[in-house]
Protein backbone atom coordinates (compact mmCIF):
# COMPACT_ATOMS: atom_id res chain seq x y z
CA UNK A 1 0.00 0.00 0.00
CA UNK A 2 2.73 2.43 0.98
CA UNK A 3 4.62 1.51 -2.15
CA UNK A 4 1.53 2.28 -4.17
CA UNK A 5 1.19 5.74 -2.64
CA UNK A 6 4.82 6.50 -3.44
CA UNK A 7 4.22 5.47 -7.04
CA UNK A 8 1.13 7.66 -7.32
CA UNK A 9 2.99 10.62 -5.76
CA UNK A 10 5.84 10.13 -8.25
CA UNK A 11 3.33 10.25 -11.12
CA UNK A 12 1.77 13.37 -9.59
CA UNK A 13 5.20 15.02 -9.39
CA UNK A 14 5.74 14.13 -13.05
CA UNK A 15 2.40 15.70 -14.05
CA UNK A 16 3.21 18.89 -12.09
CA UNK A 17 6.64 19.15 -13.72
CA UNK A 18 5.10 18.82 -17.20
CA UNK A 19 2.91 21.86 -16.51
CA UNK A 20 5.78 23.81 -14.92
CA UNK A 21 8.03 22.95 -17.88
CA UNK A 22 5.46 24.17 -20.41
CA UNK A 23 4.92 27.32 -18.34
CA UNK A 24 8.64 28.15 -18.64
CA UNK A 25 8.23 28.12 -22.42
CA UNK A 26 6.48 31.49 -22.08
CA UNK A 27 9.80 33.33 -22.33
CA UNK A 28 12.95 32.65 -24.39
CA UNK A 29 15.01 33.32 -21.24
CA UNK A 30 13.47 30.41 -19.30
CA UNK A 31 12.44 28.12 -22.15
CA UNK A 32 15.54 25.93 -22.20
CA UNK A 33 15.17 25.18 -18.49
CA UNK A 34 11.48 24.49 -19.09
CA UNK A 35 12.28 21.89 -21.72
CA UNK A 36 14.75 20.24 -19.32
CA UNK A 37 12.08 20.18 -16.59
CA UNK A 38 9.61 18.50 -18.96
CA UNK A 39 12.30 15.96 -19.89
CA UNK A 40 12.91 15.29 -16.19
CA UNK A 41 9.16 14.80 -15.74
CA UNK A 42 9.26 12.21 -18.51
CA UNK A 43 12.20 10.42 -16.90
CA UNK A 44 10.36 10.28 -13.56
CA UNK A 45 7.27 8.83 -15.28
CA UNK A 46 9.33 6.20 -17.11
CA UNK A 47 11.37 5.13 -14.08
CA UNK A 48 8.26 5.00 -11.89
CA UNK A 49 6.48 2.79 -14.41
CA UNK A 50 9.43 0.44 -14.64
CA UNK A 51 9.75 0.16 -10.86
CA UNK A 52 6.01 -0.20 -10.24
CA UNK A 53 5.29 -2.88 -12.83
CA UNK A 54 6.72 -6.34 -12.55
CA UNK A 55 8.64 -6.35 -15.75
CA UNK A 56 9.07 -9.85 -17.07
CA UNK A 57 10.97 -9.03 -20.22
CA UNK A 58 13.78 -6.67 -19.27
CA UNK A 59 16.07 -7.65 -22.14
CA UNK A 60 13.53 -6.92 -24.83
CA UNK A 61 12.47 -3.63 -23.24
CA UNK A 62 16.06 -2.43 -22.87
CA UNK A 63 16.68 -3.29 -26.52
CA UNK A 64 13.57 -1.25 -27.47
CA UNK A 65 14.76 1.70 -25.37
CA UNK A 66 18.24 1.57 -26.86
CA UNK A 67 17.05 1.38 -30.46
CA UNK A 68 14.60 4.24 -29.93
CA UNK A 69 17.12 6.34 -28.02
CA UNK A 70 19.77 5.86 -30.67
CA UNK A 71 17.48 6.74 -33.58
CA UNK A 72 15.95 9.71 -31.75
CA UNK A 73 19.31 10.99 -30.51
CA UNK A 74 21.13 10.78 -33.83
CA UNK A 75 18.33 12.29 -35.88
CA UNK A 76 17.88 15.19 -33.46
CA UNK A 77 21.52 16.20 -33.96
CA UNK A 78 21.65 15.51 -37.69
CA UNK A 79 18.54 17.46 -38.70
CA UNK A 80 18.93 20.89 -40.32
CA UNK A 81 16.86 23.74 -38.93
CA UNK A 82 15.12 24.16 -42.29
CA UNK A 83 14.03 20.52 -42.10
CA UNK A 84 12.52 20.93 -38.62
CA UNK A 85 8.86 20.69 -39.79
CA UNK A 86 9.30 17.22 -41.29
CA UNK A 87 11.39 16.08 -38.30
CA UNK A 88 8.64 17.14 -35.89
CA UNK A 89 6.12 15.45 -38.20
CA UNK A 90 8.09 12.21 -38.12
CA UNK A 91 8.55 12.20 -34.31
CA UNK A 92 4.87 12.99 -34.02
CA UNK A 93 3.97 9.96 -36.10
CA UNK A 94 6.04 7.70 -33.87
CA UNK A 95 4.23 9.02 -30.79
CA UNK A 96 0.86 8.28 -32.39
CA UNK A 97 2.10 4.89 -33.55
CA UNK A 98 3.26 4.01 -30.03
CA UNK A 99 -0.19 4.84 -28.63
CA UNK A 100 -1.92 2.72 -31.28
CA UNK A 101 0.42 -0.21 -30.58
CA UNK A 102 -0.35 0.01 -26.84
CA UNK A 103 -4.06 -0.38 -27.62
CA UNK A 104 -3.42 -3.22 -30.09
CA UNK A 105 -1.27 -5.07 -27.53
CA UNK A 106 -4.06 -4.64 -24.98
CA UNK A 107 -6.56 -6.22 -27.38
CA UNK A 108 -4.18 -9.11 -28.01
CA UNK A 109 -3.60 -9.63 -24.27
CA UNK A 110 -7.34 -9.89 -23.67
CA UNK A 111 -7.56 -12.39 -26.53
CA UNK A 112 -10.17 -10.32 -28.32
CA UNK A 113 -12.63 -10.68 -25.41
CA UNK A 114 -12.64 -7.03 -24.47
CA UNK A 115 -16.34 -6.40 -23.92
CA UNK A 116 -18.35 -3.20 -24.15
CA UNK A 117 -17.37 -0.57 -21.58
CA UNK A 118 -14.95 2.25 -20.95
CA UNK A 119 -11.96 0.02 -21.43
CA UNK A 120 -13.10 -1.41 -24.73
CA UNK A 121 -14.15 1.96 -26.12
CA UNK A 122 -10.81 3.49 -25.07
CA UNK A 123 -8.93 0.75 -26.92
CA UNK A 124 -10.88 1.36 -30.14
CA UNK A 125 -10.56 5.15 -29.86
CA UNK A 126 -6.80 4.86 -29.30
CA UNK A 127 -6.39 2.65 -32.36
CA UNK A 128 -8.31 5.13 -34.54
CA UNK A 129 -6.61 8.32 -33.28
CA UNK A 130 -3.17 6.73 -33.02
CA UNK A 131 -3.47 5.10 -36.44
CA UNK A 132 -4.58 8.33 -38.13
CA UNK A 133 -1.77 10.24 -36.38
CA UNK A 134 0.83 7.70 -37.50
CA UNK A 135 -0.05 7.43 -41.18
CA UNK A 136 -1.08 11.09 -41.49
CA UNK A 137 2.26 12.20 -40.03
CA UNK A 138 4.15 9.93 -42.43
CA UNK A 139 2.37 11.56 -45.39
CA UNK A 140 3.08 15.02 -43.96
CA UNK A 141 6.74 14.02 -43.60
CA UNK A 142 6.92 12.76 -47.21
CA UNK A 143 5.31 15.97 -48.50
CA UNK A 144 7.57 18.30 -46.50
CA UNK A 145 10.67 16.27 -47.38
CA UNK A 146 9.51 16.55 -51.01
CA UNK A 147 9.68 12.78 -51.46
CA UNK A 148 6.11 13.05 -52.75
CA UNK A 149 4.29 15.92 -54.43
CA UNK A 150 3.45 18.91 -52.24
CA UNK A 151 0.40 19.62 -54.40
CA UNK A 152 -3.04 18.65 -53.15
CA UNK A 153 -4.07 15.19 -54.40
CA UNK A 154 -7.77 15.35 -55.16
CA UNK A 155 -10.25 12.93 -56.68
CA UNK A 156 -14.03 12.79 -57.07
CA UNK A 157 -16.18 12.13 -54.00
CA UNK A 158 -13.13 12.58 -51.75
CA UNK A 159 -15.07 14.00 -48.80
CA UNK A 160 -17.79 11.37 -49.10
CA UNK A 161 -15.19 8.59 -49.15
CA UNK A 162 -13.44 10.01 -46.09
CA UNK A 163 -16.75 10.27 -44.25
CA UNK A 164 -17.57 6.66 -45.20
CA UNK A 165 -14.15 5.49 -44.02
CA UNK A 166 -14.69 7.23 -40.71
CA UNK A 167 -18.12 5.63 -40.28
CA UNK A 168 -16.63 2.24 -41.23
CA UNK A 169 -13.96 2.72 -38.55
CA UNK A 170 -16.63 3.45 -35.94
CA UNK A 171 -18.71 0.45 -37.06
CA UNK A 172 -15.83 -2.03 -37.04
CA UNK A 173 -14.74 -0.63 -33.67
CA UNK A 174 -18.19 -1.37 -32.24
CA UNK A 175 -18.29 -4.85 -33.83
CA UNK A 176 -14.78 -5.61 -32.49
CA UNK A 177 -16.24 -5.10 -29.01
CA UNK A 178 -18.62 -7.95 -29.74
CA UNK A 179 -21.75 -5.82 -30.08
CA UNK A 180 -24.45 -7.58 -32.11
CA UNK A 181 -22.08 -10.49 -32.81
CA UNK A 182 -21.36 -9.15 -36.29
CA UNK A 183 -18.35 -11.02 -37.60
CA UNK A 184 -15.41 -12.20 -35.56
CA UNK A 185 -13.97 -9.57 -33.15
CA UNK A 186 -10.42 -10.30 -34.33
CA UNK A 187 -11.25 -9.77 -37.99
CA UNK A 188 -13.17 -6.60 -37.14
CA UNK A 189 -10.27 -5.33 -35.06
CA UNK A 190 -7.69 -5.82 -37.80
CA UNK A 191 -10.02 -4.17 -40.33
CA UNK A 192 -10.40 -1.25 -37.88
CA UNK A 193 -6.61 -0.94 -37.65
CA UNK A 194 -6.25 -0.97 -41.43
CA UNK A 195 -9.05 1.58 -41.95
CA UNK A 196 -7.47 3.93 -39.40
CA UNK A 197 -4.17 3.86 -41.26
CA UNK A 198 -5.87 4.43 -44.62
CA UNK A 199 -7.91 7.30 -43.15
CA UNK A 200 -4.74 9.09 -42.00
CA UNK A 201 -3.46 8.96 -45.58
CA UNK A 202 -6.69 10.03 -47.27
CA UNK A 203 -7.19 12.92 -44.84
CA UNK A 204 -3.66 14.28 -45.43
CA UNK A 205 -3.09 13.92 -49.20
CA UNK A 206 -5.64 16.58 -50.29
CA UNK A 207 -3.80 19.21 -48.23
CA UNK A 208 -1.36 21.38 -50.16
CA UNK A 209 2.17 22.42 -49.25
CA UNK A 210 1.19 25.91 -48.11
CA UNK A 211 -1.27 24.49 -45.59
CA UNK A 212 1.28 22.16 -44.02
CA UNK A 213 1.75 24.32 -40.88
CA UNK A 214 -1.91 23.71 -40.05
CA UNK A 215 -1.63 19.98 -40.64
CA UNK A 216 1.52 19.62 -38.55
CA UNK A 217 -0.18 21.48 -35.68
CA UNK A 218 -3.33 19.38 -35.98
CA UNK A 219 -1.40 16.10 -36.03
CA UNK A 220 0.50 17.34 -32.98
CA UNK A 221 -2.83 17.72 -31.24
CA UNK A 222 -3.93 14.22 -32.34
CA UNK A 223 -0.76 12.64 -30.98
CA UNK A 224 -1.59 14.16 -27.59
CA UNK A 225 -5.17 12.91 -27.76
CA UNK A 226 -3.92 9.45 -28.74
CA UNK A 227 -1.65 9.49 -25.68
CA UNK A 228 -4.55 10.54 -23.45
CA UNK A 229 -6.75 7.81 -24.94
CA UNK A 230 -3.99 5.27 -24.25
CA UNK A 231 -4.07 6.64 -20.70
CA UNK A 232 -7.73 5.61 -20.46
CA UNK A 233 -6.75 2.14 -21.74
CA UNK A 234 -4.15 1.49 -19.04
CA UNK A 235 -5.89 3.90 -16.58
CA UNK A 236 -2.80 5.96 -15.91
CA UNK A 237 -3.35 9.59 -14.87
CA UNK A 238 0.03 10.96 -15.95
CA UNK A 239 -0.62 9.67 -19.46
CA UNK A 240 -4.03 11.35 -19.48
CA UNK A 241 -2.63 14.65 -18.16
CA UNK A 242 0.37 14.84 -20.49
CA UNK A 243 -1.77 13.80 -23.45
CA UNK A 244 -4.37 16.46 -22.64
CA UNK A 245 -1.68 19.16 -22.39
CA UNK A 246 -0.34 18.29 -25.84
CA UNK A 247 -3.84 18.02 -27.27
CA UNK A 248 -4.61 21.55 -26.06
CA UNK A 249 -1.29 22.91 -27.32
CA UNK A 250 -1.79 21.47 -30.80
CA UNK A 251 -5.33 22.83 -31.11
CA UNK A 252 -4.23 26.33 -30.05
CA UNK A 253 -1.40 26.37 -32.61
CA UNK A 254 -3.78 25.06 -35.27
CA UNK A 255 -6.18 27.93 -34.60
CA UNK A 256 -3.35 30.51 -34.69
CA UNK A 257 -2.18 29.16 -38.05
CA UNK A 258 -5.71 29.20 -39.47
CA UNK A 259 -6.15 32.80 -38.31
CA UNK A 260 -2.82 33.78 -39.91
CA UNK A 261 -4.03 32.41 -43.22
CA UNK A 262 -7.53 33.76 -42.71
CA UNK A 263 -9.10 30.36 -43.23
CA UNK A 264 -11.30 28.05 -41.23
CA UNK A 265 -10.07 24.65 -40.17
CA UNK A 266 -12.78 23.00 -42.30
CA UNK A 267 -11.56 24.99 -45.29
CA UNK A 268 -7.98 23.77 -44.84
CA UNK A 269 -9.04 20.18 -44.19
CA UNK A 270 -11.44 19.88 -47.09
CA UNK A 271 -10.12 21.92 -49.96
CA UNK A 272 -7.45 23.88 -51.73
CA UNK A 273 -7.49 27.69 -51.71
CA UNK A 274 -11.05 28.77 -52.52
CA UNK A 275 -12.08 30.73 -55.56
CA UNK A 276 -8.76 31.02 -57.40
CA UNK A 277 -10.35 29.44 -60.48
CA UNK A 278 -12.14 32.59 -61.59
CA UNK A 279 -9.26 35.01 -61.18
CA UNK A 280 -7.89 36.53 -64.35
CA UNK A 281 -4.23 35.52 -64.21
CA UNK A 282 -3.36 36.78 -67.67
CA UNK A 283 -2.31 40.21 -66.40
CA UNK A 284 -0.04 38.96 -63.60
CA UNK A 285 3.42 40.37 -63.98
CA UNK A 286 2.55 42.42 -67.08
CA UNK A 287 2.54 45.86 -65.48
CA UNK A 288 5.77 47.90 -65.32
CA UNK A 289 7.85 47.75 -62.14
CA UNK A 290 10.92 49.66 -60.98
CA UNK A 291 13.95 47.41 -60.91
CA UNK A 292 16.93 47.84 -58.66
CA UNK A 293 20.36 46.24 -58.33
CA UNK A 294 22.41 45.60 -55.20
CA UNK A 295 24.15 49.00 -55.32
CA UNK A 296 20.83 50.88 -55.51
CA UNK A 297 19.33 48.86 -52.67
CA UNK A 298 22.48 49.39 -50.55
CA UNK A 299 22.12 53.16 -51.04
CA UNK A 300 18.41 53.00 -50.10
CA UNK A 301 19.15 51.15 -46.86
CA UNK A 302 22.52 52.55 -45.83
CA UNK A 303 21.63 56.21 -45.28
CA UNK A 304 18.32 56.01 -43.40
CA UNK A 305 17.30 55.82 -39.74
CA UNK A 306 15.03 52.79 -39.65
CA UNK A 307 14.75 49.56 -41.64
CA UNK A 308 12.43 46.60 -41.13
CA UNK A 309 13.13 43.18 -42.69
CA UNK A 310 10.16 41.00 -43.62
CA UNK A 311 11.46 37.47 -44.26
CA UNK A 312 9.18 34.86 -45.85
CA UNK A 313 9.09 31.35 -47.18
CA UNK A 314 11.52 32.21 -50.01
CA UNK A 315 14.22 33.11 -47.49
CA UNK A 316 13.77 29.75 -45.76
CA UNK A 317 13.93 27.85 -49.04
CA UNK A 318 17.10 29.67 -50.12
CA UNK A 319 18.57 29.20 -46.59
CA UNK A 320 19.58 32.84 -46.75
CA UNK A 321 19.04 33.67 -43.07
CA UNK A 322 22.80 34.03 -42.41
CA UNK A 323 23.24 36.51 -45.27
CA UNK A 324 20.25 38.50 -44.04
CA UNK A 325 21.78 38.75 -40.57
CA UNK A 326 25.04 40.05 -42.14
CA UNK A 327 23.06 42.76 -43.93
CA UNK A 328 21.40 43.62 -40.62
CA UNK A 329 24.73 43.79 -38.77
CA UNK A 330 26.32 46.02 -41.43
CA UNK A 331 23.36 48.42 -41.35
CA UNK A 332 23.44 48.56 -37.56
CA UNK A 333 27.15 49.35 -37.70
CA UNK A 334 26.17 52.34 -39.84
CA UNK A 335 23.71 53.48 -37.17
CA UNK A 336 20.52 52.21 -38.81
CA UNK A 337 17.80 50.87 -36.50
CA UNK A 338 17.08 47.33 -37.77
CA UNK A 339 14.07 45.17 -36.84
CA UNK A 340 12.76 41.86 -38.14
CA UNK A 341 9.00 41.45 -38.67
CA UNK A 342 7.83 37.84 -38.65
CA UNK A 343 4.35 36.88 -39.86
CA UNK A 344 2.70 33.95 -38.04
CA UNK A 345 2.69 31.84 -41.19
CA UNK A 346 6.21 32.68 -42.41
CA UNK A 347 8.17 29.45 -42.80
CA UNK A 348 6.76 25.98 -42.85
CA UNK A 349 5.53 25.46 -39.30
CA UNK A 350 4.43 27.81 -36.51
CA UNK A 351 7.40 29.93 -35.39
CA UNK A 352 9.75 28.32 -37.95
CA UNK A 353 11.15 31.64 -39.19
CA UNK A 354 12.11 32.65 -35.64
CA UNK A 355 14.14 29.46 -35.27
CA UNK A 356 15.88 30.03 -38.62
CA UNK A 357 16.79 33.60 -37.64
CA UNK A 358 17.90 32.46 -34.17
CA UNK A 359 20.15 29.93 -35.89
CA UNK A 360 21.71 32.83 -37.80
CA UNK A 361 22.41 34.56 -34.44
CA UNK A 362 19.72 37.22 -34.79
CA UNK A 363 18.91 38.11 -31.16
CA UNK A 364 15.28 37.36 -30.28
CA UNK A 365 14.64 40.87 -28.96
CA UNK A 366 15.00 42.11 -32.56
CA UNK A 367 12.22 39.78 -33.76
CA UNK A 368 8.70 41.16 -33.70
CA UNK A 369 5.49 39.42 -34.59
CA UNK A 370 3.00 40.99 -36.91
CA UNK A 371 0.70 42.43 -34.24
CA UNK A 372 3.62 44.01 -32.38
CA UNK A 373 5.20 45.76 -35.34
CA UNK A 374 2.37 46.55 -37.74
CA UNK A 375 1.86 50.09 -36.40
CA UNK A 376 5.54 50.91 -36.93
CA UNK A 377 5.52 50.69 -40.74
CA UNK A 378 4.24 54.27 -41.41
CA UNK A 379 7.24 55.67 -39.46
CA UNK A 380 9.77 53.40 -41.14
CA UNK A 381 12.16 54.64 -43.82
CA UNK A 382 12.60 51.39 -45.71
CA UNK A 383 11.20 47.86 -45.61
CA UNK A 384 13.10 44.97 -47.18
CA UNK A 385 10.81 42.05 -48.07
CA UNK A 386 12.69 38.81 -48.74
CA UNK A 387 10.77 35.96 -50.35
CA UNK A 388 7.41 36.92 -48.85
CA UNK A 389 4.37 37.72 -50.98
CA UNK A 390 0.76 37.11 -49.85
CA UNK A 391 1.44 38.26 -46.27
CA UNK A 392 2.30 41.72 -47.67
CA UNK A 393 -0.48 41.94 -50.26
CA UNK A 394 -2.62 45.07 -49.75
CA UNK A 395 -5.44 43.27 -51.62
CA UNK A 396 -6.34 41.77 -48.23
CA UNK A 397 -8.00 45.12 -47.44
CA UNK A 398 -10.27 44.75 -50.48
CA UNK A 399 -13.44 42.93 -49.39
CA UNK A 400 -13.80 41.43 -52.87
CA UNK A 401 -10.36 39.77 -52.90
CA UNK A 402 -9.87 36.04 -52.25
CA UNK A 403 -7.51 36.96 -49.43
CA UNK A 404 -9.90 39.59 -47.99
CA UNK A 405 -9.40 39.95 -44.25
CA UNK A 406 -6.13 38.02 -44.13
CA UNK A 407 -3.88 39.61 -41.50
CA UNK A 408 -1.14 41.28 -43.56
CA UNK A 409 1.92 43.37 -42.80
CA UNK A 410 1.14 46.98 -43.74
CA UNK A 411 4.49 47.38 -45.50
CA UNK A 412 3.01 49.64 -48.20
CA UNK A 413 2.64 52.37 -45.54
CA UNK A 414 6.41 52.68 -45.18
CA UNK A 415 8.31 55.40 -47.09
CA UNK A 416 10.11 52.88 -49.28
CA UNK A 417 9.63 49.18 -49.93
CA UNK A 418 12.11 46.84 -51.61
CA UNK A 419 10.93 43.39 -52.63
CA UNK A 420 13.52 40.65 -53.15
CA UNK A 421 12.04 37.85 -55.20
CA UNK A 422 12.89 35.53 -58.06
CA UNK A 423 10.11 36.83 -60.33
CA UNK A 424 6.72 38.52 -60.30
CA UNK A 425 4.96 35.16 -59.97
CA UNK A 426 2.08 35.04 -57.51
CA UNK A 427 2.24 33.43 -54.05
CA UNK A 428 0.14 30.55 -52.73
CA UNK A 429 -3.08 32.57 -53.06
CA UNK A 430 -2.49 32.74 -56.83
CA UNK A 431 -3.18 36.47 -57.17
CA UNK A 432 -1.14 39.47 -58.25
CA UNK A 433 0.37 41.78 -55.63
CA UNK A 434 -0.23 45.53 -56.15
CA UNK A 435 2.65 46.27 -53.81
CA UNK A 436 5.12 45.37 -56.59
CA UNK A 437 3.81 48.18 -58.83
CA UNK A 438 3.69 50.95 -56.21
CA UNK A 439 5.64 54.15 -56.93
CA UNK A 440 7.77 53.79 -53.84
CA UNK A 441 8.56 50.11 -54.43
CA UNK A 442 11.73 48.64 -55.96
CA UNK A 443 12.02 45.06 -57.22
CA UNK A 444 15.38 43.36 -56.61
CA UNK A 445 15.14 40.14 -58.63
CA UNK A 446 17.17 37.00 -57.98
CA UNK A 447 17.80 34.10 -55.63
CA UNK A 448 17.56 35.38 -52.04
CA UNK A 449 20.94 33.98 -50.99
CA UNK A 450 22.89 35.36 -53.97
CA UNK A 451 21.11 38.72 -53.89
CA UNK A 452 21.74 39.16 -50.17
CA UNK A 453 25.42 38.24 -50.66
CA UNK A 454 25.66 40.94 -53.36
CA UNK A 455 23.92 43.35 -51.01
CA UNK A 456 26.43 42.63 -48.23
CA UNK A 457 29.25 43.50 -50.65
CA UNK A 458 27.50 46.65 -51.86
CA UNK A 459 26.84 47.94 -48.33
CA UNK A 460 30.50 47.37 -47.39
CA UNK A 461 31.50 49.53 -50.36
CA UNK A 462 29.21 52.40 -49.39
CA UNK A 463 31.15 55.54 -48.51
Amino acid sequence: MNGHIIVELAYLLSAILFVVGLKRLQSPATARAGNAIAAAAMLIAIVTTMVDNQILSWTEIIIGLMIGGLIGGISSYAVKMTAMPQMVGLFNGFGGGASALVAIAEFVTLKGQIGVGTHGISVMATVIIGGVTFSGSMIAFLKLQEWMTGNPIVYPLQKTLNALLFLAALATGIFALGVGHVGDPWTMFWILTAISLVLGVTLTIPIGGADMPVVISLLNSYSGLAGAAAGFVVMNMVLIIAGALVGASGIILTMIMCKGMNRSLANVAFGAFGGTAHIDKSQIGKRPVKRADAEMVAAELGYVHSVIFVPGYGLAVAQAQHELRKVGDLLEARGVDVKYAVHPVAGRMPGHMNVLLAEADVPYNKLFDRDEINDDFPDTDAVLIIGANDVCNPAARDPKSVIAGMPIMDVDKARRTIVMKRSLSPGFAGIDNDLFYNDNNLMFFGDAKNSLAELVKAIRELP
Partner: protein
Amino acid sequence: MGELMIALYVFTLATLAGREVITKVPPTLHTPLMSGSNAISGISIVGALIVAGRTHGTLELILGVAAVAMGTINVVGGFLVTDRMLAMFKKR
Protein backbone atom coordinates in the same frame (compact mmCIF):
# COMPACT_ATOMS: atom_id res chain seq x y z
CA MET B 1 -17.20 8.18 -8.09
CA GLY B 2 -15.91 5.63 -10.54
CA GLU B 3 -12.42 5.53 -11.96
CA LEU B 4 -13.74 6.66 -15.36
CA MET B 5 -15.31 9.82 -13.97
CA ILE B 6 -12.12 10.70 -12.10
CA ALA B 7 -10.17 10.17 -15.31
CA LEU B 8 -12.59 12.42 -17.23
CA TYR B 9 -12.21 15.16 -14.62
CA VAL B 10 -8.43 14.86 -14.84
CA PHE B 11 -8.50 14.98 -18.65
CA THR B 12 -10.79 18.03 -18.76
CA LEU B 13 -8.91 20.01 -16.11
CA ALA B 14 -5.55 19.18 -17.70
CA THR B 15 -6.86 20.42 -21.07
CA LEU B 16 -7.95 23.70 -19.47
CA ALA B 17 -4.60 24.07 -17.68
CA GLY B 18 -2.84 23.41 -20.98
CA ARG B 19 -4.89 26.09 -22.69
CA GLU B 20 -4.05 28.66 -19.99
CA VAL B 21 -0.32 27.92 -20.10
CA ILE B 22 0.06 27.62 -23.85
CA THR B 23 -1.92 30.66 -25.04
CA LYS B 24 0.74 32.78 -23.30
CA VAL B 25 3.65 31.27 -25.26
CA PRO B 26 4.91 33.97 -27.68
CA PRO B 27 4.99 33.25 -31.46
CA THR B 28 8.83 33.31 -31.35
CA LEU B 29 8.73 30.06 -29.40
CA HIS B 30 5.98 28.26 -31.30
CA THR B 31 8.32 25.81 -33.04
CA PRO B 32 10.11 24.78 -29.81
CA LEU B 33 6.69 24.62 -28.14
CA MET B 34 5.50 22.24 -30.81
CA SER B 35 8.56 20.01 -30.73
CA GLY B 36 8.64 20.09 -26.92
CA SER B 37 4.96 19.25 -26.54
CA ASN B 38 5.53 16.64 -29.22
CA ALA B 39 8.16 15.05 -27.00
CA ILE B 40 5.65 15.09 -24.15
CA SER B 41 3.16 13.20 -26.32
CA GLY B 42 5.75 10.41 -26.26
CA ILE B 43 4.34 9.80 -22.75
CA SER B 44 2.57 6.85 -24.38
CA ILE B 45 5.91 5.13 -23.68
CA VAL B 46 4.50 4.65 -20.15
CA GLY B 47 1.63 2.62 -21.61
CA ALA B 48 4.11 0.82 -23.85
CA LEU B 49 6.29 -0.19 -20.89
CA ILE B 50 3.24 -1.52 -19.05
CA VAL B 51 2.03 -3.70 -21.93
CA ALA B 52 5.51 -4.83 -22.97
CA GLY B 53 6.63 -5.60 -19.43
CA ARG B 54 3.79 -7.81 -18.26
CA THR B 55 3.78 -10.40 -21.01
CA HIS B 56 5.45 -13.58 -22.24
CA GLY B 57 3.30 -13.84 -25.36
CA THR B 58 5.32 -13.36 -28.55
CA LEU B 59 2.87 -11.13 -30.42
CA GLU B 60 2.20 -8.91 -27.41
CA LEU B 61 5.91 -8.64 -26.74
CA ILE B 62 6.66 -7.64 -30.32
CA LEU B 63 3.88 -5.03 -30.26
CA GLY B 64 4.94 -3.74 -26.84
CA VAL B 65 8.64 -3.47 -27.68
CA ALA B 66 7.84 -1.76 -31.00
CA ALA B 67 5.72 0.71 -29.01
CA VAL B 68 8.59 1.25 -26.55
CA ALA B 69 11.02 1.91 -29.42
CA MET B 70 8.66 4.33 -31.20
CA GLY B 71 7.83 6.14 -27.96
CA THR B 72 11.55 6.46 -27.15
CA ILE B 73 12.32 7.95 -30.57
CA ASN B 74 9.58 10.49 -29.93
CA VAL B 75 10.74 11.33 -26.40
CA VAL B 76 14.52 11.38 -26.87
CA GLY B 77 14.45 13.00 -30.30
CA GLY B 78 11.80 15.52 -29.29
CA PHE B 79 13.50 16.83 -26.15
CA LEU B 80 16.98 16.92 -27.70
CA VAL B 81 15.90 18.76 -30.83
CA THR B 82 13.96 21.26 -28.71
CA ASP B 83 17.02 21.86 -26.56
CA ARG B 84 19.13 22.35 -29.69
CA MET B 85 16.74 25.02 -30.94
CA LEU B 86 16.34 26.82 -27.63
CA ALA B 87 20.12 26.98 -27.19
CA MET B 88 20.18 29.25 -30.27
CA PHE B 89 17.80 31.86 -28.85
CA LYS B 90 19.97 34.68 -27.56
CA LYS B 91 19.36 38.22 -26.44
CA ARG B 92 21.58 41.19 -27.12
